[in-house]
């Protein structure tokens, strides 16, 4: 498997070991991009920092918490309202963010006193919230503030509050991934085991590494509840602080994003003997297998099978409608970390698209092993991509669509490649059966956008087609389809609602009697 050298990076030869092409018959023992190494300065990498990995990715989805960053105001401002992780408590965690607002005098004379005042003020402003997460930033790490000591002091004075301290300044590690690690370990070390939960089922799991983007975790929690499984905690999407302190009481840790949350599962395995089951919540077959495995662990496969049958019957004809229309479309799958392996194979199998490139901003080599294994031959895999390499790849690969972040999506727009937001989604949730159809629908709408088609026309040179006052997505898609596919009566377009999550809050679940004693 040859390493791939970008023309634009010939002058930084160390980049060569960060990209490979998966050749015919080749596997991951022949070449693997380097990963999780320090970024090359000035390369215009897409990586973020360890603070955002801790606070923005993992900490903030916790819904019933004051999230306070100890530092100048920018870290807080910048990691506020740039995500779509919702919650069922009216999105408290999205709406409110807190900064200790460290100023020059605090840098010189220390900021511990003002931190304490900050904490007290924040609890006072929101008297119903009794939990807080406290994040170190570059500045306060460098001046050496002892945040743990301050937190302990406040907890002593205010016995009804609890504070979690996360020391993950921006510079700690090559990317946001360093922060994922730090907060995982800090949480299990400092908080797990402190709360004894109410056990309501014979079957109890933690759902780990799931951040409730546009409702993903609520969709999955719905499935678990329908099978009578108690989701003790979600780490951390729509998660509750005190539920997460009780993680030690689950019988099984169901792990979704191993990139960001395997650490806590591994530690729970060591400390409490709770096994870790890695699952894929994306795609019909992987999801069905995952639900079946979780159920089988508890000996309730029949419940899983009933759910799988029901959901598949409802949504498969819609997925297949899109698959017929997406077959052979070329995709650059360029997310942050875990989605490159969550999606690489299943979008090929279930939507018929060809993954021609995968990349990861902050993944490790293990993510590339998974991602490359799951790609088809010919795919270009890139670690820690930078701006010029991405552009070079798009120009040479000519994808029909790319899945990436918001800002890189703007770069793609200029090259006239449609983009979908791989982190926040366009019209999610994309997990679950319905979610997977929504993803397919978003891809279809992007690729067959009449406006996208118009963007390819040069009115100064090309023949201008004047016959039509309009074109629909369907007209563009149908142009490449056989008549029997177009008229296939058993397939249909997505038929769900704009918001498919909110109704879940009021849903009533079957009462599976709890058999075992506590």
């Amino acid at each position, binding site marked *: 498997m040859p390493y791939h050298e970008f023309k634009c*990076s010939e*002058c*930084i030869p160390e980049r060569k070991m960060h990209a490979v092409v998966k050749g015919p018959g080749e596997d991951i023992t022949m070449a693997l991009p380097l990963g999780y190494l*320090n*970024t*090359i*300065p*000035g*390369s*215009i*990498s897409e*990586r*973020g*920092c*360890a*603070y*955002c990995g801790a606070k923005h990715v993992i900490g903030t989805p916790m819904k019933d918490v004051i999230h*306070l960053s100890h530092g*100048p*105001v*920018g*870290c807080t*401002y*910048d990691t506020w*309202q*740039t995500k779509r992780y919702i919650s069922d408590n009216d999105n408290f965690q999205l*709406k*409110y*963010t*807190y*900064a*200790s*607002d*460290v100023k020059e005098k*605090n*840098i010189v004379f220390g900021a511990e006193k*003002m931190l304490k005042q900050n904490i007290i003020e*924040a609890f006072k*402003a929101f008297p119903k919230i009794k939990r807080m997460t406290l994040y170190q*930033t*570059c*500045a306060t*790490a*460098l001046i050496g503030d002892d945040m743990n000591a301050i937190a302990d002091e406040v907890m002593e004075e205010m016995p009804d509050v609890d504070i979690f301290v996360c020391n993950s*300044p*921006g*510079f*700690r*590690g090559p990317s*946001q991934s360093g922060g994922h690690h730090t907060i995982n370990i800090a949480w299990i070390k400092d908080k797990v085991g402190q709360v004894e939960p109410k056990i309501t089922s014979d079957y109890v799991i933690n759902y780990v590494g799931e951040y409730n983007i546009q409702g993903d975790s609520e969709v999955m929690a719905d499935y678990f509840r329908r099978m009578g499984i108690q989701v003790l905690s979600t780490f951390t999407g729509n998660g509750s602080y005190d539920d997460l302190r009780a993680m030690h009481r689950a019988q099984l840790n169901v792990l979704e994003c191993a990139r960001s949350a395997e650490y806590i599962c591994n530690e729970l395995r060591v400390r409490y003997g709770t096994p870790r089951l890695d699952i894929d919540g994306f795609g019909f077959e992987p999801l069905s297998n995952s639900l079946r495995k979780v159920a089988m662990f508890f000996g309730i496969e029949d419940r899983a099978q009933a759910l799988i049958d029901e959901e598949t019957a409802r949504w498969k004809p819609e997925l297949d409608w899109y698959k017929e229309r997406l077959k052979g479309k070329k995709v650059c799958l360029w997310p942050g970390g875990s989605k490159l392996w969550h999606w690489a194979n299943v979008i090929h199998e279930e939507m018929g698209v060809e993954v021609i490139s995968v990349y990861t901003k902050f993944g490790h080599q293990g993510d590339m092993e998974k991602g490359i294994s799951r790609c088809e031959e010919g795919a270009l895999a890139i670690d820690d991509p930078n701006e*010029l390499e991405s552009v070079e790849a798009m120009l040479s690969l000519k994808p029909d669509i790319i899945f990436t972040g918001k*800002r890189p999506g*703007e770069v793609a727009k*200029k*090259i*006239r490649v449609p983009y979908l937001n791989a982190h926040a989604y366009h019209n999610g949730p994309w997990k679950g059966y319905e979610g997977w159809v929504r993803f397919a629908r978003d891809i279809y709408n992007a690729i067959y956008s009449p406006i996208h088609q118009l*963007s*390819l*026309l*040069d009115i100064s040179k090309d023949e201008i087609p004047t016959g039509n006052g309009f074109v629909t997505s369907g007209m563009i898609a149908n142009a490449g389809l056989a008549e029997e596919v177009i008229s296939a009566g058993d397939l249909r377009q997505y038929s769900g609602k704009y918001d498919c999550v909110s109704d879940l809050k009021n849903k009533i679940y079957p009462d599976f009697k709890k058999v075992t004693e506590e």
Partner: protein
Amino acid sequence: MNCEVKSKERVGVINPIFTCQPAGAQYVSIGIRDCIGIVHGGQGCVMFVRLLISQHLKESFEIASSSVHEEGAVFGALNRVETAVDVLLMRYPHVKIIPIITTCSTEVIGDDVDGVVIKLNEGLLQEKYAGREVHLVPIHTPSFVGSMVSGYDVALHDFIKYFAEKSEPNGKLNLITGWVNPGDVTELKYLLSEMQIDATVLFEIENFDSPVMPDGNVVSQGDTTIDDLIGTANAYGTIALNRYEGGKAAQYLEKTFKIPTIIGPTPIGIRNTDTFLQNLKKMTGKPIPKSLVHKRGLAIDALTDLTHMFLADKKVAIYGNPDLVIGLAEFCLDLEIKPVLLLLGDDNSFYAKDTRIKALQEKVDFKMEIITNADLWELENRIKNEGLELDLILGHSKGRFVAIDNNIPMLRVGFPTYDRAGLHRYPVVGYNGAIWLAEQMANTIFADMEYKHNKEWVLNVW
């Protein structure tokens, strides 16, 4: 006194109005052609600011990071700057200007950025890039000082200080716009062109609104050139529209090159635009043409349709960049709207001494509060817990939930406005800005009346 100026009492910030200094410096850097900044700090300091700018403008801009990791934070990270400069220059052959923008971390560890620039100038640039025009501009923007507003001011000053060079008079006016949108620059250039004034506009950012082209190779960037920056020393005058975003550079030019200078007012609304034109007239000796009398007439006509029937006595809260907030408040008063609460989001001690704020204190005849070092909780807490009643909020998108959760109509103004489409294309300055602002305020209120069934039938006859 009806109008009280006070500072937020809490020490911390709940929902900030501004981000920190390096963001302002980065916003300046993208306005200059052949310029890619290096932010010396952690990667988040760049990644999130690029995201923020792209959310606002729906475009991507190139800014680099020195990617300071643990070793750098412990042992010093100047070697990261050296590598970053080299890598940027190798891979971006068009780049001529590299501002090196510091952050809290690299200021705390005391990295000598000025020293490394000298070292690079004497070493790398001569050895490896001889014959290539390269300017390394150190910009100190520690995040624990000021805010994105002062970061903008500092960066602009540092660029001017680096480049401005006295030679022959260039017959131009320096127009320093402050932190504005592409739509504002279009409007300002329209006014200048009607006045037949040749000006160096800092910054030429109309192309922040850039197209999708058939050849697919557009990279968004501003168009201010090195020559523009050098020539600022040779202008016959400077007008800086915003005191806190460009005032420092204007003062530098005045002091160093004895260039006649007028700072302010932010030409928001009819009255401030009139003053701006008067200042132009004074500085250039050129008359105000009939065409602008006509344009002004169109604006007055539009505003007359709205003021006493719909806008009068409406209570509004305004937050955001200080010059913008003050300008909007002044315009609101002319429209018979009552700006009952102004929130200025950093601890700049000059705000309280600002003559415009003093004038509000002296002359406003209803109860009004001006909060400095404010956050958005100062707004929300007053609404939720202290009985503040508002008919409208003017501010940027970060405060959207204050409006949404309290059922108050809100017009997005300022930076960033990512939750509304295309606002960067419209001006808030000049006569066209006055029209746009007043009509958008009215339409926002109208939509709210209909949504709440609050005398929505009024609009049957208008």
